[in-house]
C-alpha cells in the first residue's frame, strides 16, 4: 500500500470504493494437502517457457519518391506477433532524395542537390497466406504472405508529412528464430513542394532479415 500513498488523492478516492484484487498472491500460494500423510516434497514453480514473439530486424531496399527518382534505403524494424494472424511493427528508415533532374533544367527545388529523407511508421500486419516453402526434398521452412499497412511520418527537405503506407510481403523462416523478408510498400503522403498540394505515391521494395526473441 505504500505505492498508493504517494499517488494523487484523486486517484486514491477513485479506487477506494472498489474491491482490491488479490490475484497477485495466487501464484505463490500452494493448496493445503487434504491427506497430510503424503509428505513427498514437490517443487512447485512457474515454468519459464521461452517465447519468441518479438521480431527485431534490418532491411535494405530501393525507395522511389514521386517526382524525384529512386535511391537506396535502409532501416530497422521492431515487431510483435500478437496472434498467429496479426503482428504490429514499427519501422525507422533513411534514404536520400535528389533534385538533379530539376537542376539540369535550372530550377533547383532543394538547398543542395541531395537531401536526407527519414521515415518512421507504425503498422499492423495480417498473415494472409501462411504456409511452407520447400528447398530440395528434406528441408521445409514455415512462411507467410502478409498484408501490412499503417501510419507514419516522412521527413525530407526539413518538412514532415503524415504518411499512410500499405504493402504486401513474404516472410520465410529457415529456423524458428530467424526470418527473411521481401516486401513491397507504397508510402503515401500529400505534398505541396511542386506548387500544388497533391497525394504522392512512393514505392519501396525491401529485402530484410530478422531475429525473434
Amino acid at each position: 500500500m505504500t505505492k498508493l500513498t504517494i499517488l494523487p488523492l484523486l486517484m486514491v478516492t477513485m479506487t477506494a470504493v472498489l474491491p482490491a484484487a488479490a490475484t497477485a498472491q495466487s501464484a505463490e500460494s500452494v493448496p493445503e494437502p487434504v491427506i497430510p500423510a503424503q509428505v513427498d516434497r514437490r517443487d512447485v514453480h512457474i515454468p519459464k517457457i521461452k517465447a519468441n514473439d518479438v521480431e527485431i530486424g534490418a532491411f535494405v531496399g530501393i525507395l522511389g519518391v514521386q517526382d524525384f527518382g529512386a535511391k537506396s534505403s535502409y532501416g530497422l524494424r521492431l515487431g510483435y506477433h500478437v496472434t498467429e494472424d496479426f503482428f504490429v511493427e514499427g519501422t525507422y528508415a533513411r534514404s536520400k532524395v535528389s533534385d538533379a533532374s530539376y537542376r539540369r533544367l535550372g530550377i533547383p527545388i532543394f538547398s543542395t542537390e541531395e537531401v536526407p529523407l527519414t521515415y518512421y511508421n507504425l503498422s499492423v500486419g495480417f498473415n494472409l497466406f501462411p504456409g511452407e516453402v520447400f528447398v530440395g526434398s528434406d528441408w521445409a521452412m514455415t512462411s507467410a504472405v502478409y498484408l501490412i499497412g499503417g501510419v507514419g511520418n516522412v521527413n525530407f527537405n526539413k518538412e514532415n508529412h503524415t504518411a499512410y503506407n500499405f504493402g504486401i510481403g513474404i516472410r520465410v523462416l529457415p529456423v524458428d528464430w530467424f526470418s527473411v523478408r521481401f516486401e513491397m510498400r507504397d508510402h503515401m503522403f500529400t505534398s505541396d513542394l511542386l506548387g500544388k498540394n497533391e497525394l504522392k505515391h512512393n514505392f519501396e521494395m525491401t529485402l530484410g532479415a530478422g531475429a525473434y526473441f
Partner: protein
Amino acid sequence: MGTPAGVARWCFWALVALVHPAWAAEANERVLVADPYLELRTGPGRGYPIFDIAERGERVEILMRHTDWFKVRTPRGKEGWVSRAQMEATLTEAGEKRTFRDVLFDDYLARRMEFGFAFGTLRHDPLLSAYAGYRLHDNFVAELTIAQSAGDFSTTSLYYASLVSQPFPEARWSPFFALGAGRFANVPKSTLVSAIETKGGLANAAIGLRYYVTRQFFLRVEAKRHVALINYNSADHYNELSAGAAFFF
C-alpha cells in the same frame, strides 16, 4: 547430405552455431499428456498439417512458445507445434492438481509491461502516438507517451508521462482516466514566412475505454484535453481524439 539443400542447411547451421552460442542444454519444462493425445503440427498455425501425436501418459518437453503455439518434443524425439487449447489440458510436473492452463494464466497475470500506439486528431491535424506502460498496481498504470502531429502548417511533437487509473481492471470493457505532464514543441513549415518555433510545458487529462480482445491484446479509444503552457501569461487548449491498439509483454 550431398544435395544442394543439405549443403545449404549445413552452412546455415554453421552460421547459427557462430552467432547463437546461447543454446546450451537448459532444462526445459515437461508436461504430462492427460487428453487421449496431443496433435503435433509442422508449423505454428491452424492450417499446418498434423504429422505426429503424443499419447496420454507421455511426457513432452516444451521448447518454446510462438503466439498461442507451443513447440514440443515427444519422448520419441519428434518436434512439432501444439495449440494452446491442447496444451492447457496437460498436467505440469508439479502435480495432478495443477494444469498447464493455470500456469499460463499466472503467466498472463504476471505481465506488467504494456506497449501500444494510436492514431487520431489534434486540432484537426493527424496525430500519431506510441506509449509504453508499467502496471504499478491492479488499478494504476504509469505511461510514457511520445506523439507527433504533422499538419499542413506545422509539426507538433509531444512528450509526456501520465498516470492512468483503471477502476475496473478485470472488465472486458474497461474505462480509464489519466493525468499527464510533459513538454511540447511546435515547428512551423519552413516555407511559411515569419514562422517561429514554440516550446513549452504540457499538461493533459483524458478519459478513455479499453476493450480486451484477448488476455494480451486490447484496443483503446480516448479523448484528451491538452493545456500548452507557453509562458506565465498564456496557455492554449487543444483537444485530441485517438484510437489504437496495445498489448502486454
